[in-house]
């Protein structure tokens, strides 16, 4: 990761709390909610730092998210934790879009205790692309990344012990991919390990 | 032959001392039988009492109020498949429960249920009891080792460490009681179980009240150590269910497991017997020197009968409260029958010759039963100690207290005599 981009970062001056509308029960909601551009000090700072790396920063139904370039990971996450106080990684998950060229959305849901604010960082990656692990940033990412690997087959580089977590070792296929059928299973594994023809 | 049998009746010692093998054998059989019945009764009572402490009913299905449950359990255990782990050492695996059960029963040779109601009396009685009962740790260790499995191994190691440590505190408490027996005119103490009770009789006090509160403290040390010694809650670490599944007997099932079970309960009775003998005046009735005279003797001699009649009345009351549905007819009749048996025993105990002979045994049993209730109560109340805390209690609390009590007792003994 390029280290020099970090150097000119101005220290964040006063987290812009007011700029982030976050009440879940917003008083009046528009009839058809659409993502609105999310403008806040945080976004401005990040945009200044990373330029077009921050592809999109929006608010949808009062929830803020940004779509960033996958090359910014894990540096951006590190910045978010260290400088923007997003010290709690709520969840790491993925969504599979088989029609797209970059098949996977990989999503970090972050929360800041100091700001009482939740954001989502989203990247898009292609099948087989390796993502740097964020275990060194948030230890909680360990199991969460293992689950993403287990369910989607997204590999994380630098993960201390990347192996299946919910499915048994040696299982073939990643169930939460869209091309994995709902009653599909690894028949071979079932036959060898459970001694039955099929688990159905 | 007949002479040999009847000749003992004239002597006023235990059959062992009189050298009468026939009566010794009869006594052994009686004790064995009584102990088995006691373990069965204890099993039922523990489940019922614990259940009522925990707002539930306990066994209710097999027989009225689950009275036949222990028998059903025993049957089930006997006909269960006999499982031995493939990796276990078969010979040692078999020997282990035998060691435990034999040691648990052997100690009863010297337990004095009355002045003559013991198989024999040894001049090293207490030492014999402590020595033999501590042999059971050997059985537990071999059981854990022979299972060739991790949980039993850890359980066995815990058990041996625990029993060895608590034996020291126990021993110190026992010594202070033995020291108290020497506080007489000629200054000779005794280790004989019967002798200890007689010493309390002679000194006109139970040793628990001797040099108050010294005797009480020594008794307390013993009472704690004996719970640890028998691996019961809150010191049940060797068989801590939530940690080690079942500790040293994890791999045991069926008949062999039932031997461990039998041994555990008879060991509880055995250590309680020591406590009763040493501190609670053994077979003596309450206040033998304060409430003296013919009348009081009569009143106290009625207790056994009254107890059984009361039990019979409770049973009859339960019979009335049984559901009136025809499904419960057999059970109701059974319960009534059980009550009738209890009542008959009670009436039998009012008959003067029986009454006089049964008294000692009755008071001894009642005191032991008190301890049994305590065991159950502990189990219902306390969480389990952790291993290091258990060791801490043994070595840092009980041992110094036991030692202190021993020294102070010695000093007081010298000063006061």
């Amino acid at each position, binding site marked *: 990761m390029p280290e020099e981009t970090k150097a000119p970062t101005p220290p964040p001056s006063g987290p812009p709390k007011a700029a982030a509308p976050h009440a879940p*029960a917003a008083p009046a909601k528009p009839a*058809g909610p659409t993502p609105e551009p999310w403008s806040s000090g945080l976004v401005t700072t990040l945009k200044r730092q990373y330029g077009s790396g921050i592809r999109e920063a929006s608010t949808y*139904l009062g929830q803020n998210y940004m779509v960033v370039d996958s090359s910014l990971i894990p540096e951006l996450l590190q910045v978010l934790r260290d400088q923007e106080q997003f010290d709690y990684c709520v969840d790491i998950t993925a969504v599979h879009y088989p029609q797209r060229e970059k098949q996977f959305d990989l999503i970090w849901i972050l929360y800041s205790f100091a700001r009482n604010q939740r954001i989502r960082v989203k990247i898009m990656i292609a099948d087989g692309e390796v993502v740097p692990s964020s275990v060194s940033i948030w230890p909680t990412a360990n199991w969460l990344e293992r689950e993403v690997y287990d369910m989607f087959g997204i590999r994380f580089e630098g993960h201390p012990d990347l192996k299946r977590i919910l499915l048994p070792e040696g299982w073939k296929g990643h169930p939460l991919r869209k091309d994995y059928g709902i009653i599909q299973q690894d028949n071979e594994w079932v036959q060898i390990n459970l001694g039955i023809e099929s688990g159905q | 032959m007949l002479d040999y049998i009847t000749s003992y009746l004239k002597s006023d010692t235990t059959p062992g001392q009189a050298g009468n093998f026939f009566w010794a054998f009869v006594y052994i059989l009686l004790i064995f039988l009584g102990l088995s019945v006691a373990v069965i009764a204890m099993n039922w009572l523990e489940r019922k009492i614990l259940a009522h402490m925990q707002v539930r009913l306990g066994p209710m299905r097999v027989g009225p109020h689950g009275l036949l449950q222990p028998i059903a359990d025993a049957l089930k255990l006997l006909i269960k498949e006999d499982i031995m782990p493939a990796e276990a050492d078969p010979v040692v695996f078999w020997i282990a429960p035998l060691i435990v059960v034999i040691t648990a029963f052997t100690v009863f040779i010297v337990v004095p249920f009355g002045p003559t109601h013991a198989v024999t009396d040894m001049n090293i009685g207490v030492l014999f009891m402590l020595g033999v009962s501590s042999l059971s740790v050997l059985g537990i260790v071999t059981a854990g080792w022979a299972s060739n499995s991790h949980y039993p191994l850890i359980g066995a190691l815990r058990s041996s460490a625990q029993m060895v440590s608590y034996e020291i505190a126990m021993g110190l408490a026992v010594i202070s009681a033995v020291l108290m027996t020497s506080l007489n005119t000629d200054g000779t103490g005794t280790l004989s179980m019967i002798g200890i009770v007689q010493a309390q009789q002679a000194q006109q006090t139970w040793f628990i009240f001797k040099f108050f509160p010294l005797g009480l403290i020594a008794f307390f040390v013993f009472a704690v150590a004996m719970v640890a010694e028998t691996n019961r809650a809150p010191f049940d670490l060797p068989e801590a269910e939530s*940690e080690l599944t079942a500790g040293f007997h994890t791999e045991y099932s069926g008949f062999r497991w039932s031997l461990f079970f039998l041994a555990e309960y008879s060991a509880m009775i055995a250590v309680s017997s020591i406590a009763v003998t040493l501190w609670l005046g053994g077979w003596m009735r309450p206040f033998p020197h304060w409430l003296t005279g013919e009348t009081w003797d009569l009143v106290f001699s009625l207790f056994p009968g009254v107890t059984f009649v009361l039990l019979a009345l409770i049973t009859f009351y339960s019979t009335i409260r049984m559901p009136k549905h025809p499904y419960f007819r057999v059970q109701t009749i059974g319960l009534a029958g059980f009550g009738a048996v209890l009542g008959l025993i009670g009436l039998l105990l009012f008959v003067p010759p029986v009454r006089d002979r049964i008294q000692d045994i009755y008071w001894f049993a009642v005191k032991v039963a008190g301890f049994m209730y305590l065991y159950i109560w502990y189990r219902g109340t306390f969480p389990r100690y952790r291993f290091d805390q258990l060791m801490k209690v043994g070595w840092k609390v009980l041992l110094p207290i036991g030692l202190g009590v021993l020294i102070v007792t010695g000093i007081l003994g010298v000063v006061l005599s």
Partner: protein
Amino acid sequence: MTERSSHLELEQADKTYLDSNELIINMGPQHPATHGVLRVILKLDGEKVLGTECVIGYLHRGVEKIAENRTYTMFNPYVDRMDYVAAVSNGLGYCEAVEKLLNVEAPSRAKYIRVILTELNRLASHMLWLGTHALDIGAITPLFYTFRDREEILKIFEKYCGARLTTHAFRIGGCQYETYDGFEEDVTKFLKFVTPKIDEYEQLLTTNRIWVERTRGVGVISAADCKALGVTGPVLRASGVKWDLRKAQPYAAYSDFDFEIPTGQSGDTYDRYLVRMQEMRQSLRIIEQAVGKIPDGPIMAKVPKVMKPPVGEVYHSIEAPKGELGYFIVSDGSTQPYRVRVRPPSFVNLQALDQMVRGQLVADVIAVIGTLDIVLGEVDR
């Protein structure tokens, strides 16, 4: 068998049995104290724990995959099967997440009913935790007391919606059932009934020497570690962080009620015990406030029969009894969710086990598993 490899087992593989003082033992999946089918591989030096590894997934049912093949409404009962001791909370989280996606809001009467039932469920969950936790530490009696009192809660659930455990009490947009006649009296009666019972539990445990010795200083986790490990709920609060989603980002009707967030200082098992006991009392307080003033009005918002939320994604989380329970739902505009991700508190909290027990004794592993209050249905989903 292709045995699952554990790094602990692999480490051990080149050592023979007699070489080392270290012992690898396997706790679970069938073990009385692992609260289900959790398998913990322990590396021991005598009684001391050198390392642990959790093997999970024995109860994996693919809830997230099922969601993608069901409509929004059809998936609703499935969430009850995750944390089956706090099914109402699960349902609340899911319903609110979908409502947010649909951009509707439940009517305030429904919100009040939701709060009452959810708090009752929190009580039930904490009672079950207390009973099993105490049982693990060797006190067998509290289990029966807590089950006796939990029964009263389950009776209220049963009267309300017919189910006791997996209640499926709420619907997207509100509640399906109006409160039954006498609901408020029942709840009030329950409040009166249960308050002395909680004192009774405390009497048995709070000042019990053995209990204090077994829990104080055991499984300590600092606030910083909690945040780093994503640990939430009572565990986080016992470490001194005053954070509760009911206050931080109020949902349902929680902003209307006056309650406190109990916190601890030392982050040990005893503090977690105290925090949960306090939470039970706070829940009673919330219920007491709510039950008196359930507003009149409809119980369902206007939601279409066939739900087709607009394209978009939403993350909504609630304070479940065990911590932050989040639902991340992606809609592609069809009747079925494109992706439902459940952020289970038990799963994330369980990750802290290794750090909490390293260097402690075997008996503490049991205490810590108990104090983390995990439900394997939720860990494995």
